[in-house]
């Protein structure tokens, strides 16, 4: 193993992190860092695909367990592509979840990922402030973000509802999100 025991896990690249977990069954620092690093990404994947907090949290648990198991057993062939491996695990577990397979309980019985390793819930927004920001949006922007994020309607459906085009819905939604971020003081997201 390349000698990095003194290095803080947060500063390790994915490949080195994978190697450290594979080199020992008790490198809890490295395993904690793996969970911290990928837990939020897995959760976002779950939210995007399931639109369910509970299912997203389940996905985090299952994928981290699978990843830790594979790394400990040195079954990750390309440690340099750890992120890709974890994404692949997300896709596999999500497919299985959709098929209703009951693998979760079996895995969780064998591997209990400590609760504190799971990612924290999304940062709480000041909802009163956000309400004010939503109310400041022009009517069309307000309606499109509500239909998208509350109504869970996709662009084609919204375009049909409003007799407009998907392209127009996207432009309006993009503009609305920009206005909300500006109003909420969110920075660092915009990259055109």
């Amino acid at each position, binding site marked *: 193993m390349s000698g990095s025991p003194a290095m803080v896990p947060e500063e390790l690249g994915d490949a080195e992190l994978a190697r450290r977990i594979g080199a020992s069954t008790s490198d809890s620092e490295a395993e904690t860092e793996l969970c911290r*690093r990928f837990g939020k990404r897995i959760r976002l994947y779950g939210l995007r695909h399931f639109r369910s907090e509970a299912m997203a949290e389940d996905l985090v648990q299952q994928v981290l367990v699978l990843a830790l198991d594979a790394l400990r057993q040195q079954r990750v062939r390309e440690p340099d592509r750890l992120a890709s491996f974890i*994404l692949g695990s997300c896709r596999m577990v999500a497919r299985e979840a959709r098929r209703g397979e009951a693998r979760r309980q079996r895995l969780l019985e064998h591997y209990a990922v400590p609760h504190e390793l799971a990612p924290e819930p999304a940062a709480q927004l000041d909802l009163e402030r956000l309400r004010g920001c939503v109310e400041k949006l022009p009517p069309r922007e307000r309606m499109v973000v509500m239909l998208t994020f509350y109504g869970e309607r*996709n662009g084609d459906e919204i375009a049909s509802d*409003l007799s407009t085009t998907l392209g127009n819905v996207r432009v309006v939604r993009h503009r609305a999100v920009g206005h909300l971020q500006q109003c909420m003081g969110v920075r660092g997201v915009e990259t055109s």
Partner: protein
Amino acid sequence: MHGRSRRGNVVSQVDCATPVSMATLVDYWAGDTSTADAERFEEHAFACETCSRRLEAIATLAGGVARVATMPGGIGMVVTQALIDRLLADGLRMRHYRVQPGETVQCTVGPDDDLSVTYLSAELHDVQRVDVVLYAHGSEWARMDDAPIDRVTGQVIYTTGGRLARTFPAITVRVELRAPEKDGNARVLGEYTFEHTPHSG
């Protein structure tokens, strides 16, 4: 693609030299990307802390918007019938006022109402854009320009938050539905009168 940590070690989580656009993030989160594009983005986001954080910011905002929709006290907006149905299913309390051009409606708001929902009917088949203008005491009080038309019902539907409506005194509000024309003038599609009485409870 990625930067280096302060110790000079290559880490995959620092900066991103090829950040995806915000439009891509929003479209991805809204489910409006092709499967191939979504998978390509996911490959990037899983290896990039910067872009996964940016996506998280979008997701947090989107989740917040969804929560705002059902906050007690309601929110004023132009809506579709589908959105009203969803709000009802989520337990919001509301009063409904359906009006035809020229009609006068008596209205009020209760102590527990989250929303007052107004349905403006008019001949809107060939109309591309409408503005809703509200008058009180003879002058313009509020307006909603470019108000979306619900194509399913053929109406303009808007809500007033109960919290705001409970602050209204006894007042008569005249509403005009207008279609702006190319010459800068506006064609009035309908006029509606609301005689609001504060809730006595």
